[in-house]
C-alpha cells in the first residue's frame, strides 16, 4: 500500500478530532503516516495509532513556532520528497489551507480545498456556493493535496502500533520571513470546540446582544455556542465564534439558530447541519426555509422555558 501523509493537529497533548477524521479517510487511499508539528508526549503517537497511523513523524524545529505557515509547508515538502506519498491530507483550517497552497506550488501537485469526502480513487466531494451545489472533483497532476473540512466523516478506530520518529528538516531563511512577535492565548470557553461539537446553539441580531439564553441552552445540551456575523459585527460575541462564509463552517448533528435571519453569508456556514431548529420573531426569515423545526416567536420567552425543562429532566 502507498503511504498517505496526514497533518495531525493537536493541542495541549490532545490530538484534535479532525486528525482522527483525516486518518479514517486516509486509510481509503493507503497507509496513513501522521505528521505532527511541535513537541508532544507519547500518548499522542499512541492515539494516532489507534486510528490507523502506521508511522508518526515528529517535526520540532523552533522555526515552526516562530514564523507563520511557511516553515510547516517547507517541512512537509521535504517529507513528501522522501516518502513520495500517494496523497496529502490536511484539515481545512485557514492555516491548513495556506500550508496546502504553498505545498501545491512546491510539489507541483493539484489542490482541492474544503472537501467533505474523499473516496479510494481520490475523487473528492465539496459543498459550494453556500452549500447550494455539490461538486465532485479529482486531482490530475502530482500527488493530490486535499484539505478536508472538520466533521466530514465519523472517526473509525483501526489500531496499529505506531512509533514516533523524530524527523530533521531544514528551514530556509526565505521561510522565516513572517515573524510571530507576540501571541496572547485566549481564555477557553470550557465548551466543546465549535467545528467539532455535535450540537451548536447560535445567536444573532434577534438576541439584542444578550447571549445568556443562547449560552445556557448550549450548556444544558452540552453544545458549543456560535454567532452570526451581525452579532459579531455588533461586538456582542467574539469573531472566533462567527459562523458563516467568513467565519467557521459547522456541520453538527443539531444546529439551533436563535434570532438569526439566515442570510446567505450565514447559511454558507451551517447549511450542511444534520438537523436545524430556528427560533425567530420574523415568520418570513429565510432561516425557516432550512429548519426542520421552526418556532415563530420571541426567543426570550421560548428559551428559558426550554432550559428549565431540560434541567428538570436531567434532575
Amino acid at each position: 500500500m502507498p503511504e498517505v501523509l496526514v497533518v495531525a493537529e493537536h493541542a495541549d497533548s490532545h490530538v484534535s478530532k479532525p486528525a482522527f477524521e483525516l486518518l479514517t479517510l486516509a486509510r481509503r487511499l493507503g497507509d496513513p503516516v501522521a505528521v505532527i508539528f511541535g513537541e508532544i508526549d507519547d500518548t499522542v503517537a499512541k492515539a494516532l495509532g489507534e486510528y490507523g497511523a502506521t508511522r508518526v513523524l515528529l517535526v520540532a524545529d523552533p522555526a515552526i513556532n516562530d514564523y507563520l505557515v511557511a516553515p510547516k509547508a517547507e517541512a512537509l515538502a521535504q517529507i513528501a520528497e522522501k516518502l513520495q506519498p500517494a496523497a496529502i491530507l490536511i484539515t481545512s483550517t485557514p492555516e491548513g489551507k495556506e500550508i496546502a497552497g504553498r505545498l501545491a506550488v512546491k510539489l507541483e501537485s493539484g489542490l482541492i480545498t474544503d472537501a467533505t469526502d474523499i473516496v479510494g480513487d481520490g475523487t473528492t466531494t465539496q459543498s459550494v456556493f453556500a452549500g447550494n451545489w455539490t461538486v465532485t472533483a479529482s486531482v490530475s497532476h502530482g500527488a493530490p493535496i486535499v484539505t478536508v473540512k472538520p466533521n466530514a466523516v465519523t472517526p473509525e478506530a483501526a489500531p496499529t502500533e505506531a512509533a514516533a520518529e523524530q524527523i530533521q528538516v531544514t528551514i530556509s531563511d526565505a521561510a522565516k520571513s513572517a515573524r510571530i512577535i507576540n501571541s496572547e492565548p485566549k481564555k477557553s470557553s470550557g465548551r466543546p470546540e465549535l467545528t467539532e461539537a455535535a450540537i451548536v446553539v447560535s445567536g444573532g441580531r434577534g438576541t439584542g446582544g444578550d447571549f445568556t439564553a443562547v449560552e445556557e441552552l448550549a450548556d444544558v445540551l452540552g453544545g458549543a455556542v456560535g454567532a452570526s456575523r451581525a452579532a459579531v459585527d455588533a461586538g456582542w460575541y467574539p469573531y472566533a465564534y462567527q459562523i458563516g462564509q467568513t467565519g467557521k463552517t459547522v456541520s453538527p448533528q443539531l444546529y439551533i439558530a436563535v434570532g438569526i435571519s439566515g442570510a446567505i453569508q450565514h447559511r454558507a456556514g451551517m447549511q450542511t447541519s444534520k438537523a436545524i431548529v430556528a427560533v425567530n420573531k420574523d415568520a418570513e426569515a429565510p432561516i425557516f426555509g432550512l429548519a426542520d423545526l421552526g418556532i415563530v416567536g420571541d426567543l426570550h420567552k421560548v428559551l428559558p422555558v426550554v432550559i428549565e425543562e431540560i434541567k428538570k429532566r436531567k434532575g
Partner: protein
Amino acid sequence: MKIVVLAKHVPDATGERTFAADGTVDRASSDGLLSELDEYAVEQALQVADERDEVEVVVMTLGPEDAADAIKRALQMGASAGVHIIDDAVHGSDALATSAILAEAIKNAAPELVICGMASTDGTMGVIPAMIAERLGWPAVTLGATLSVADDHVTIRRDDDVASFTIEASLPAIVSVTDQSGEARYPSMKGILAAKKKPVETWTLADLGIEAASVGLDAAWSKVILTTPRPPKEPGRVVQEENGASALIDFLAAGKYI
C-alpha cells in the same frame, strides 16, 4: 509607496449562482461585482494612502471583460489606477495557474506591498496570497484583523481559536486582511466622477511572458467531474410562540439530544 490590491470580480452571492457546462463558475448568467471580501483590502490600502504621503494604490484584477467592473468600483472608492489582466486562455484556470499569472503581474508592477482579501466569495479557497508569496519568495502576512504599514515593514494581528498573534514582516510583502479589518468606504459622488479619468491598463498573458497553454481549463491540475444542485429541503414543521417550548422539547427528546 506603491500598493497593489488584488481584486476579484465574482457572481453576486445573493443571486442564483450556477455552473457552466464545462464545470467552471457560470459568470454570464448572473450579475457580477467586486468580491465583498476584496473591498476590505481596498479599504486598507486607501487607509495607508490617507495616512502617508505619496502612496499609489493600483487595483489589479484577472478576469474576462466584465471584471473591469471590479476595477471601476475600487477606483470609485479611491484607488489611483487599475490593471486588468485579460486573456481568453485564462478561462478555467485553477488556483495554481491563477497564482502564477498574478505573481508575474506583481513582478511587472513592482509594488512594495500587495494587499488581498481573505478569500474570494465564489471559490472561497483562500490560498492565492500564500501561493503568490511562495512563487515570489516574499513574506505572506495573512488574515490580518488589523494592519499597520511602516516604511520598511508591516504588522498585523491574526486571531485563531487559541490565540491572538502579532506578526511582522519586511517589505516587500503580501498581506491579506479579514472582514474584521474595518468597514469598507462607500464611493462618494466625487469618487465616482474622478474614477472615470483614472488610468486602467490591460495586460495579456503575452505581456507577462506566460505561455497560454500553461494556464486555463485544460492545464488545470484538478478536474471537476460533476456539479449537482443541492435538492431543495423538505419544508419542516413551523409552530407559533405559545407552542414553541413544548415543540422544541419534543424535538430534542425525539432526537435523543436530551
